[in-house]
Every structure is written in C-alpha cells, then in structure tokens.
C-alpha cells in the first residue's frame, strides 16, 4: 500500500517510516500540517496516517480538506484520548484512531485492516503448512488430525491465520477475539495462547505459533 504519514515528531516519524516500509508499504512522510495537506490532496495514497497536533494545520484541518476532495481512509493518531477528540475525529470522517502511546504492531494491524476494507469477501478456508481452517464448518485440522478447539480458541487461531506472518500484540488479540478494549494487567492472553499452542503445536514437530518477545505472537512456518 502507498501510505502518507503526517507526524511532526521526527523520531516517531522515522520509526513509522521504517516499520511500515519493512512491512511492505511505500511510505511518504510529512513533518507539518501544510506539507501534509498538500501531499494528501495531490498524492494518490491508499491510506493517510495523521497526527492530531501538528504545526501549521492540525490533523482535523487536514482531515477536513481531504474529506472535501476524496475518501482515502484516514487513521488519526492522538495523544489526547478525550472523548470529544475521538468524536470530532470520527465525525469529521476519520476511519479509525489510535491513542499515543501505541504499539507499532497495533498501528500495523489497523493500517492493514483499513487497507483491506472494501476488498472482496475473505476466503472460507485458511491454510498454513499442514494447518487448515474451515471457517464455514468451524473446523480446524492439522495433518489429518482434527483439533478440538473452544469457540474462542478457534477465533484466536482464525485471526492469527488471517494475519499470518504478522506479529499480533496481546492488546490487539484481546480486542479482536474477546472484545476487551483495555490493557488487562493479568496474563490472560498469554494463558489463552499457551493453551491454544498445547492443542496446535505440542503434538506436532513443526511449530507454527511463535512468541515474539515483548511484542506478541505470530503464526508462521519457520525454517
């Protein structure tokens, strides 16, 4: 995807540029509101990532200008999680918002979710190596062996499989699988993943579900 990131904090902008580029996106960065608005209006982007507080024109200003011209998806970044700000952003036509400090994995997940929006319906079966998920009949199978998963374990595995190769943080998993929009101070997700791993990986030689220290979990085949 072609992305425009408008962020005035140079280090954060550099990290976003690096991280998103390494995840296969083409990224342009603007460091103030005026450049940002210009690029957003002139360029052809699949997604805009706008910081709210910017020199020149603020994020809401850019959002207004963009919405008058086109319907490029917009993800807002804000340090203020006041309800009014959220409401203002969403009412102004932002598609999603992230509150600082956010994890990069969370940003990536949302960027991809927004980029996918509007694409044709997703597949009814998912596959990775010898793992196969039938989303219609809600059955999981590895090699020839059927995996006996609870409903939530199935949902967790589905999400990991849909985003295979991508690290998903505990926060993203808690939000997407259990609809828990807060940082729990317990290791609930950790335990859930451990139990899924017990059914998915433990009986087999090839491990698919990996822990990425400090970041979360990823489902992929490793050499």
């Amino acid at each position, binding site marked *: 995807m072609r992305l425009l990131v408008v962020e005035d904090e140079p280090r954060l902008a550099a990290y976003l540029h690096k991280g998103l580029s390494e995840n296969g996106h083409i990224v342009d960065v603007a460091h103030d509101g005026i450049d940002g608005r210009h690029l957003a209006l002139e360029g052809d982007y699949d997604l805009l990532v706008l910081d709210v507080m910017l020199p020149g024109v603020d994020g809401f200003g850019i959002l207004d200008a963009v919405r008058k011209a086109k319907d490029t998806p917009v993800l807002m970044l804000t340090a203020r999680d006041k*309800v009014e700000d959220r409401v203002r952003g969403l009412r102004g036509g932002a598609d999603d918002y992230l509150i600082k*400090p956010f994890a990069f994995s969370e940003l990536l997940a949302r960027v991809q979710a927004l980029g996918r929006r509007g694409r044709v319906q997703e597949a009814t079966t998912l596959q990775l190596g010898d793992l196969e998920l039938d989303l219609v009949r809600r059955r999981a199978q590895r090699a020839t062996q059927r995996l006996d998963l609870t409903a939530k374990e199935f949902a967790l595995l589905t999400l990991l499989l849909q985003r295979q190769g991508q690290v998903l943080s505990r926060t993203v998993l808690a939000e997407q699988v*259990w609809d828990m929009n807060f940082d729990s*101070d317990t290791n609930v997700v950790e335990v859930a993943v451990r139990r899924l791993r017990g059914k998915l990986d433990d009986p087999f030689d090839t491990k698919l579900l990996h822990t*990425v220290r400090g970041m979360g979990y990823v489902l992929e085949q490793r050499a």
Partner: protein
Amino acid sequence: MSRLDPRTSIVARVALALAGIAVLVFAAVGALLYWTLERELMRVEFDEVQGKVALVRQLLEDSGAAGVDGAFRTQLEDVLAGHGNLKVWIHDRDGRLLFGDAAEPVHLAADGEPSLFTLPDGRTTSGCRLEVDALGPAQGAQVTVALADSMRGQVLGMYGRSVAWICGLGIAATALLAAWATRRGFRPVRRLAEHASRITPAALSVRLPLDGEDEELQGLAVSFNHALDRLQEAYARLESFNADVAHELRTPLATLISGTEVTLAATRSPQELEHLLGTQLELLQRLRTIVNDMLFLARADIGEQAADREPVSLSAEAGRVVEYYDGLIAEAGAQVRIDGDAQVRCNPGLVRRAISNLLSNALKYSDGAAPARIGIEISQDEREARLRVRNAGPTIPSEVLPRLFDRFYRGEPSRAPGSDSHGLGLAIVRAIARMHGGGVDAVSRDGITVVGFSLPK
C-alpha cells in the same frame, strides 16, 4: 480604612441600612412633632378668635339700639388696640360693611366655628364669623374676627427648620456610629480571615481558633475546619499518590537505563541485543499501561461521565469476561459461577473492564480448598444493579477495607513485588462505577471476601 463599596462590603451594606433606618425614624419623629405643634398652635389661635368674636358680639349686643355708632366703635377700637393682631369686620343683615377694612374680603360660614382661610396675599390665618341674634338694629348683623398675621406660620417655619437640622445631624451621627459599630462587630470575621490566610499547602494543619469566637461564627469556623481536615487528608493522599507514581515509574525506568547501559558497554551479539530490546519493550509496555490507567483515573476524578451507554445485561457481560479468563481459570483450577442478572444502561466496554479487574483480583487472592470457587453475584432492584465477586481468601481487616479502592493500595505488601498488577485495578473499578454515577463496596469476613460495584438504573 479600606474602601467600602456596598456591592462588596457587608460593613458598608449594614451601615447603609442603619443610616436608611435612621432617615426613616428621624423623618417620622420630626413630622409627628411638627404635626403636634401645628395642631396645638391652631387650637390656641382658634380659642383666641372664638373668644374675640364672642366679645365683639357682646359689645354689639350691649350697644343695643345705638348700633354701630361712635361709642361702640370707640370701645371696639380699644379692644383692637390691645390686640394689634386682630381684624374685625361687621356686616349688616344686607351685607353692607359697617366696620372694618373693605380691602380684605373674607369668606367664612357664619356658624361661630373657627377655621382656617386664605388671605388675598396668600397667607393662611384663622378666623371666625357669627350672626348676632340680639334684637335691635344689630339683629342679623355678621361679626367676623380674624388674625391679621398668624404667628403659627412663623413658629412652625422655625420649628420645622430646627427639626430638619436636628434630624439631619441625628441621621449623620447614626450613620457614622453604625459604620463604626458594624466595623467593630465584624472584627472577629477579619480575625478569622487572618487565621485562614495563614493556611498554605505547607501549613495545612493550621486551624481556625474556636474558643472565644462568637456563636454566630462558631458554626462557620467548625465547618471550615472540617473542610480543612478533609482537604488535608486528600492532600496527604495525593502526596503519597505522587510518591507512589514516581516509585512505580522509577523502578522500570531504572531497569531500562541500567539494562541499556550495561548492554551498550560491550560488544554484544545480535541475540543479546534482541533479548535486551524484548525486555525493554515489556517494561515500556508496563509504563504505558500505568500512564494510561493514571490518565483514565484522572479523567474519572475530574468528573468525566461514561459515554456510549446502552442497555446491557450484566450477566451476559460477566459471561464474556469469564470466557476471556477461561484459560486462566482452568490453569488456576478455579470454578467461576455467575448467579442472577440485571439490566442496566451503561458502557459495556467499561463494565467489562471493571468485571475483569474484580475477577482478576479474586483469582489472585483466592486460597483455601481447591478448586477455588469464585461467585459472581448479580442482583437488582428498582434503583440500582449490583455485581459482586466473592472468593475465599484471607480476611481483609475492616480498617483496611475502605482503602482497598485507593490507588496503588495492595492487600499485603509482601505480595506486591514481582506481581503483575500495578495496584490500580480496584481504583479503576471505583472510577468506572463513579463514571456511571454508581459506587463500590467491599466486605471481608470469616475468610470470604466480597467486592463489587453498583450502577444506578
């Protein structure tokens, strides 16, 4: 002396009101005195003219057939000479003037009653007229007596001016005295203000003196002192809270700094660097969680209300939270049971968070015979919906219970280190309840602890 503005000063207002009262009272008294004197003077005048008119009639009657002749005139002029202030007119039956000054027509009823009338020059004076009913030429004649110049007007004028002066002085004196007295009366208030001005964050223990204060101010001073007690307590809590925050942030920061320094001090393999970054990321996430939770609590503190409320079944939300904790519950070998249900309008995400914190706490502090049994009890009446989480665990001393919902309060200090929690869980439960206009409660007795919240319907 400070400037006294009635809009802002009680002393000025009271003094002004007293001055106003003085004006009214003095004016009323002055008017009353004036009126009394006027009546008295008039009575004296009336008596005089009545006496004189009777005298003139007598003379007229005595003159008999002689009528208004030389002898009578002489007699009458003698009488008038002794009373320079009197005027007399005599008209005969047909209205012809027999005696008196034609220039001053007088219109009076011939009834013998004294009354006031106005002279052509505008002055008011008293007069009296009567008809002579004696036989003879004087029969039917009308005798009129009037005071040429009423003393009453002069006396009253002087008296009125004196009264006005005296009243004016009285009012001025009263106003000054009132200002002085109110100022003096308010001295205790100024004294209290001086005491109060000594209270600063550094000297929060200063209290207003209660002994020797007037009873009107006692109540104020007592309430003020109570407010200060509460303020001091809150301030102390805030101070310890700040210290707690600093401590909570300092530990992970110290780990981050020293870990990074140690790692950078030598050449490290990529694996070692990766390990360091992983550890740092975990610490940073912990810092982020603390900062986010603190901001959440701060917003609840300033009275932010829960947005996006919708009708929610507490039992259904509890069920979802239990599902979330499924693995953890199974690994802890616990059993969780949900009893009852309640419908309430609330923000489901926030309520799930509250239930999650309560359940997490119950799991953490459960002990006793395995499997640990945790009960989520939901009930409602017409006013509120309640959710309580019950677990078997160490009894919490009753003096500690109220502090359970304080920030960074942990049941037992020994449990704190290394534990996953940062001590804000129950504070967040309380914040969520308050954001919905509800509250929290906790009971701990005989090894059973019940902690919960209530939400208004």
